[in-house]
């Protein structure tokens, strides 16, 4: 346990080391969120009844999504492991007396938490101060907020486990470019990062909800905005648990296979 805390500490101090990057990311997320909300507004002005979410809920959804971007979106994947695989420093990773899967899982989750802690507070603070339909509203009630936190933790587990599979594939392909791009593209689309899942056409939405990607940002954010409650929420949260178990299983299997054949190239 101490080992894992140490990873987290180092990650956090590293995040603090990059002040300009954190600031840049923050500004980008803030503008992106504003742009997104304004384009949504154009649609809502045409026919508010045509959408499955109210406009204030959609605004909250977008702000929360921006604030939690590095925490639960695929784009927040820790690039460190791609680098160590590509430049061969993975040799050192393999000569540590710890389970590689466990170590990388913790470290990439730690990166996500550290990055998010640095960035989400300012985004949320600004969003909360914005006037009513454009800003971020409070969650429906306290239980919903607590469930949001639980589901957010589960989402972190799911997205990190998907990331681990991407790392294990990179062991095979050596260059991460293709795999990473595909993973980010698919995950962004099916987790509602581009268009929230409730906006998907019937049928296709149900199909998307069966995929592991919807068990990431989609569930906690919709619980927070009040879009998801009751039985449907319970089902989707159970799906999150299921996907963590399944994806970790697949990841460990791939690790076991890859580490047997891994070749650290060059002298």
């Amino acid at each position, binding site marked *: 346990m101490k080992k894992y805390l140490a990873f987290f500490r180092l990650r956090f101090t*590293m995040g603090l*080391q990059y002040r300009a990057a954190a600031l840049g990311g923050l500004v980008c997320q803030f503008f992106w969120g504003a742009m997104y909300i304004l384009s949504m507004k154009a649609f809502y002005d045409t026919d508010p009844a045509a959408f499955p979410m109210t406009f204030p809920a959609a605004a909250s959804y977008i702000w929360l999504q921006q604030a939690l971007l590095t925490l639960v979106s695929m784009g927040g994947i820790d690039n460190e492991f791609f680098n160590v695989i590509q430049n061969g420093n993975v*040799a*050192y990773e393999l000569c*540590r*007396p710890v389970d590689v899967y466990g170590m990388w899982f913790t470290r990439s989750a730690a990166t996500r938490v550290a990055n998010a802690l640095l960035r989400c507070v300012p985004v949320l603070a600004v969003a909360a101060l914005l006037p009513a339909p454009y800003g971020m509203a409070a969650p429906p009630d306290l239980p919903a907020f607590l469930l949001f936190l639980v589901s957010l933790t589960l989402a972190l587990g799911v997205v990190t486990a998907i990331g681990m599979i991407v790392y294990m594939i990179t062991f095979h392909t050596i260059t991460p470019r293709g795999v990473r791009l595909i993973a980010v593209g698919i995950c962004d689309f099916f987790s509602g990062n581009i268009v929230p899942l409730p906006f998907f056409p019937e049928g296709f939405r149900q199909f998307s909800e069966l995929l592991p990607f919807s068990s990431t940002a989609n569930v906690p954010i919709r619980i927070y905005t009040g879009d998801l409650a009751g039985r449907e929420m319970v089902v989707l949260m159970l799906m999150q648990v299921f996907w963590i178990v399944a994806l970790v299983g697949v990841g460990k299997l791939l690790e076991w296979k890859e580490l047997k054949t891994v070749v650290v190239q*060059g002298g």
Partner: protein
Amino acid sequence: MIEVQDLRKTFKVARREAGFGQAVKALFHREYTYVHALDGVSFRIGDGEMVGYIGPNGAGKSSTIKILSGILTPDSGKCLIDGRIPWKSRQKHVKEIGVVFGQRTQLWWDVPVVDSFELLKEIYAIPTEVYKKNVDQLTELLDLAQLLRTPARQLSLGQRMRCEIAGSLLHNPKILFLDEPTIGLDAVSKLAVRDFIKRLNQERHTTVLLTTHDMQDIEALASRILLIGKGKILLDGSLEDIRRGGSHIDETVAELYKKFDVT
């Protein structure tokens, strides 16, 4: 005790001629050649020995080190290090060994070196007193006082290498594998590193296996030499065994490579 018997490892390499046409052709049809990096390597190293592992470029030195440190699984052959098979009980094995890959880095690039050390302390579960004692000792011997507080990326190669070596020794390993530890070091750092390795071997009885192309390293350190070429051990003996009276060490070794036809 390190026992290696008939170790073999073959790599598949896609080779092609230069040029665009050849690159397009290789899209559809690849010609593979098989490189026998290790072709039946056997040796035995006792506790507390200091062995120089030499050979021309591409001879199989690094592959051997990778297998001994549990990173690479050989195609066939036996390897027992203090009763452990490195690639089978990797986690248990690496706790007892220290490795320095001269071409790689284990320090976190953006944070001061001492932060990396603190993390290694947790990874290896080094007790605080042992850690403190080792850091103090290593700082003194390798002259790290100023370096520890500097981010790794702002260190010169030689400075970083001294930190890398220190990092690999924090957990008191019984066996140390050094893969080209003096690459790119200036004269002063080289002498410091050699001196340090020698003391380590004498005082802690650490078994040391080191690969290098710097024959003065070998002269200064190794009482025994293993010569590998084309994946085979060609010679196992002392420096005196291979030396012809008075000639320079580099010439002696070049002569040897020619004699065995492994250049």
